[in-house]
C-alpha cells in the first residue's frame, strides 16, 4: 500500500489557464475569482490536512446564477470542478487537483424563508449548520442533524456527505431531514428537486443527491425539515472499566426499547485529553457513555431511572446524571470538542466506519488488537447508539513512514467494520480517504451501477471526479470525459 494517489494534472487545461480565468472573470466579475497562487493556497486542503494541492482557481459564488455561469464555463473547457462549502471534510471531499476550479458556496449564507406551518426552513447552501437551528429556535424549532463541526460546517457539505451527528439516533441524518434542493446541473441549469418528504414526482432523486459527495451537481439552496424543540434534555454519564461491557450496555438499552436521543462513547485516552481541554467533569474510566434523553423533568427522570437500572446490572464504575442545564452544556461541549482537543496534542486520522450495534463489542476488541499489532495508539470517540465508530489513530504527521503505517492501520480497521456487516463511512463520506477501499465493500458491478448514475448527472465526469470511486475503476470515464 502507498499514500493516496490523485490523478496527474491535465497539461492541456493548465495551458489554457489564462483563457479560463478571463472567461470566468468576464461572466462573474473578477472580484469573485481567486487565481493567484498566493491566494489559491488557502484552498489547498480541507480537514484531511495530510493531502494538499492548490487549485487552478476558486470561484466565490454569490447566488445560484453565479454557480450556473461557472459550471457552464468549466464544462465548456472540460475542467474538473471541486465543490467546497466550509472545507471541513475529514475525508478529502473538497481536496482540489492542480487543474481544477473550486466552486465555493461560502458566500451563500442567507436564510430565505421560515415556514412554521409546514415546518421547514429554506436556506442558501453555504449557511453554517448551527445558524439554521439558531434561525428557528425563537419559533420553538430546531434543525436536527448536528455534526460536531456544526459551528463551521455548512449545509452544502452536510448534504454532500449526508451528515449526521450525536442526536441523529433519534432524528435521523441529513437525508431524513431534507425536503428539497436547488441544484446547478452540468448544463448550468438551476433545477428544483423535491420532495422526498411524502411523495415525489418521478424517482427519489434527492436520495441520490444526498450523500453524493458533490459528484452530481452543485447545491445552492436547500429546504430543510425543522422539528419542535423538546421541553428539556439531560445527559447521564456512565463509566465502565471495560470497552466491551460498555458496548454491551448500549445494545441492552436499545433492546430494552428505550430510544435515547443520543448515546455517545469515549475511551480513556480521549477522556483524558478532553478533560484537560474542556474540564467537562468526565469520570476517569476505560469507557464512558454519554446518554441523553428528552422531555420535561419528570419524563427525563423516569427514562434515566430505566437506563440506570439496565446499566447497573453491568457494574459501572461511575454513574452520574447531569443536574443542571449548565452541567449538560459542559458535558456536550466536551464531547463536541473531542476532535479539536485531540488535534492539539497529537496528529490523528479520524475514521468513520459504521457497524451494526450488536457488533460494537467485537469491533472495539478488534480495534484494540490491531492497535497493538501496529504499535500505534487508537483513541475512540463515537456515536455508539447507531454504531458509527470514530477511531482516532494517533501518529506523527512529520514522519512519512508512520503516516503510511497509520493509513494502513486505518484501512485494516475499516475492513474489520465491513467484515461484521458494517460500512466504510457513516457520515464523513468516502472522499479520497476511503476511495481505494470501495472494492472491499462493493463488487465491481455495484460500483459500475453507481457510476452509471453519475454518468446521467455528469456525462463528462467533471464534478469532483477523483473521489469516491477508486481511480483505476473510474479511469476510463475520467480520461475519456465520460463514457
Amino acid at each position, binding site marked *: 500500500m502507498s499514500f493516496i494517489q490523485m490523478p496527474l494534472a491535465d497539461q492541456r487545461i493548465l495551458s489554457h489557464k489564462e483563457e479560463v480565468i478571463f472567461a470566468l472573470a468576464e461572466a462573474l466579475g473578477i472580484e469573485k475569482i481567486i487565481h493567484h497562487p498566493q491566494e489559491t493556497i488557502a484552498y489547498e486542503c480541507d480537514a484531511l490536512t495530510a493531502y494538499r494541492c492548490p487549485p487552478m482557481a476558486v470561484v466565490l459564488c454569490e447566488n445560484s446564477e453565479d454557480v450556473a455561469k461557472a459550471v457552464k464555463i468549466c464544462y465548456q473547457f472540460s475542467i474538473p470542478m471541486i465543490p467546497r462549502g466550509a472545507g471541513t471534510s475529514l475525508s478529502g471531499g473538497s481536496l482540489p487537483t492542480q487543474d481544477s476550479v473550486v466552486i465555493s458556496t461560502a458566500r451563500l449564507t442567507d436564510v430565505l424563508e421560515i415556514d412554521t406551518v409546514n415546518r421547514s426552513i429554506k436556506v442558501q447552501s453555504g449557511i453554517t449548520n448551527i445558524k439554521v437551528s439558531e434561525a428557528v429556535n425563537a419559533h420553538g424549532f430546531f434543525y436536527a442533524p448536528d455534526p460536531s463541526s456544526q459551528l463551521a460546517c455548512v449545509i452544502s457539505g452536510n448534504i454532500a456527505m449526508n451528515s449526521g451527528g450525536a442526536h441523529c439516533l433519534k432524528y435521523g441524518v441529513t437525508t431524513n431531514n431534507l425536503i428539497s434542493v436547488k441544484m446547478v446541473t452540468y448544463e448550468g441549469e438551476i433545477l428544483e428537486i423535491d420532495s422526498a418528504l411524502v411523495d415525489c414526482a418521478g424517482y427519489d432523486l434527492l436520495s441520490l443527491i444526498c450523500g453524493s459527495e458533490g459528484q452530481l451537481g452543485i447545491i445552492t439552496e436547500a429546504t430543510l425539515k425543522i422539528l419542535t424543540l423538546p421541553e428539556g434534555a439531560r445527559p447521564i454519564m456512565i463509566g465502565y472499566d471495560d470497552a466491551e461491557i460498555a458496548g454491551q450496555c448500549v445494545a441492552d438499552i436499545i433492546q430494552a426499547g428505550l430510544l435515547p436521543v443520543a448515546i455517545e462513547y469515549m475511551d480513556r485516552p480521549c477522556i483524558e485529553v478532553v478533560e484537560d481541554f474542556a474540564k467537562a467533569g468526565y469520570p476517569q474510566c476505560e469507557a464512558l457513555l454519554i446518554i441523553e434523553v428528552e422531555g420535561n423533568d419528570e419524563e427525563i427522570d423516569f427514562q434515566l431511572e430505566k437506563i440506570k437500572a439496565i446499566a447497573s446490572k453491568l457494574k459501572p464504575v461511575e454513574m452520574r446524571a447531569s443536574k443542571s442545564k449548565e452541567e449538560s452544556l459542559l458535558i456536550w461541549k466536551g464531547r463536541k470538542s473531542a476532535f479539536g482537543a485531540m488535534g492539539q496534542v497529537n496528529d490523528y486520522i479520524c475514521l468513520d466506519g459504521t457497524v451494526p*450495534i450488536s457488533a460494537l463489542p467485537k469491533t472495539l476488541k478488534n480495534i484494540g488488537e490491531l492497535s497493538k499489532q501496529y504499535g500505534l495508539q487508537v483513541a475512540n470517540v463515537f456515536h455508539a447508539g447507531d454504531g458509527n465508530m470514530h477511531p482516532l489513530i494517533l501518529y506523527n504527521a512529520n514522519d512519512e513512514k508512520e503516516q503510511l503505517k497509520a493509513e494502513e492501520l486505518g484501512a485494516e480497521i475499516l475492513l474489520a467494520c465491513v467484515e461484521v456487516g458494517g*460500512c466504510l463511512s457513516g457520515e464523513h463520506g468516502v472522499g479520497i480517504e476511503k476511495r481505494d477501499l470501495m472494492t472491499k465493500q462493493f463488487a465491481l458491478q455495484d460500483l459500475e451501477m453507481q457510476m452509471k448514475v453519475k454518468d446521467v448527472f455528469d456525462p463528462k465526469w467533471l464534478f469532483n471526479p477523483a473521489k469516491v470511486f477508486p481511480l483505476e475503476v473510474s479511469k476510463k470515464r475520467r480520461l475519456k470525459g465520460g463514457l
Partner: protein
Amino acid sequence: MLHPRDTNDIQEIVLEKLAKNSALLIQGNQSQIDFARLDQQNSDIISMCDLNQVKLYEPGALYIVAQAGASLSEIEKTLDAHNQMLAFEPMNISQSLSHDSEPTIGGIVATNLSGSRRVLMGGCRDHVLGVEFINGAGEFITSGGRVMKNVTGLDLAKLQCGAYGSLGILTQIVLKTMPKPEVEITIKFENRSIEKAIEIFTFVMGNSFEISGAVYWNNDVYLRLSGFEIQIQNRLERIKNKMNNFSITIIENELHQDIWQSANTLSYLNGLDGDLWQIAIKPSAVAILSSEIKSHFNANISLDLAGGRLFALIHQGEDNNAHDIKALSEKYQATARLLRSNNAQNLKQYRFAKPENESLKKINQSIKKQFDPMNIFNSPF
C-alpha cells in the same frame, strides 16, 4: 407465470428475456394494482412469491433482512415477538382495492407505501437500509447495508423506493426496525371542518407532543400519542390545557387500534367505488386544494400526515377527473398518484407520479435507461 426460487433463477430469466427482447412484469402478491392487467399483455409475469424468507433479524441492532416476496404479516409477526415494529407503518390498501391478499415487503418498498406513523418516524424510504436487486442487464447489484448511518457510495437503495420495480427486480431488503412504544392512545376531535382540522394539526405539530399520527376523515380529527405512560399523561394534560375550547374524547385499547388500522388500510372507504388519489402536499395548502376538488367533483376527502397527504376518492361517474386532479395538484405544488381506478388507461398513466419539468423528466428517463437499457421491466414512463 415464472416462479424463480433464488437470485440465480432470476438472473437466468432476465438474461433470457434480454436475448429474446421481451418484457417482464414483476409481481408480488397482487395486493395493490393488478399490473398485469395494465401493461403489455404479451409480457411474462415473474412472481416473487417463492423468495419469501426472513433471512436475518437482529433486534439488538434494530434491523431485519427479508427476501422481497416475504409477506408483511410474516415480517410483522417476527418483529412482534421482540416487541418491535416497522416504524413507517406500511399501508395495506389491498382490501380497499378489493384484492384481499397479503402485501409483500418488495411491493411495499417498490411503491414506497407508508402509513400514518410517517408523520413522526419518516417514510418507507427512510427505513430502507439496503437492497439487493437484479438490474435489466441481469446483473446482481447490492447497495446500502445493515447500518443506520451510511454514506458509502450512492444510495441506490432509497432510489428503489417508489420506483415501481422499474429499475430492477428487488430480491432482498434490509429494513430498520424500532421498539414499539409502551403506550399509545388516540385523541378524537369530533365534527370539525377541514380548516379546523388543519388548525389542530398545526398547533400539535408546532409543540413537542411527538404526535405519531394525525388524520382526518368523516369530519373527525384523530391524533395518536405514543411513549411511556408518564409521557402520554403529561402531553395529554398539556394538550387539554392549551385546547380547552375544544371538546375531546380519549380512545384507548382495541378501539384505538381500530382507528389506526382504518387509517392505514383506508378501510373507511370500503364499499365506496371510484378513483382513489393520493396527493402529497404542503399542509398550508391542503384546505384550499380540498375545497377546489370538492367544487369540481363529488368527492370524499380525507387527510393524513397532519395535512401533508390528502386522499381523494372521486365517486363513480366522474371518469375524466385525472386531467383536473393533475392540474390542481400542479397549481398547489402537490404530487398526485392514482392508487385505484376502474379506468385502466388512467391507472396506467397516473399510478406513478411523473415529473413535469422537462429536465427532470430527462434525468428520470436516463436513470431508467442505465438500470434497464432494454426496457424489460415495468415502465413508469
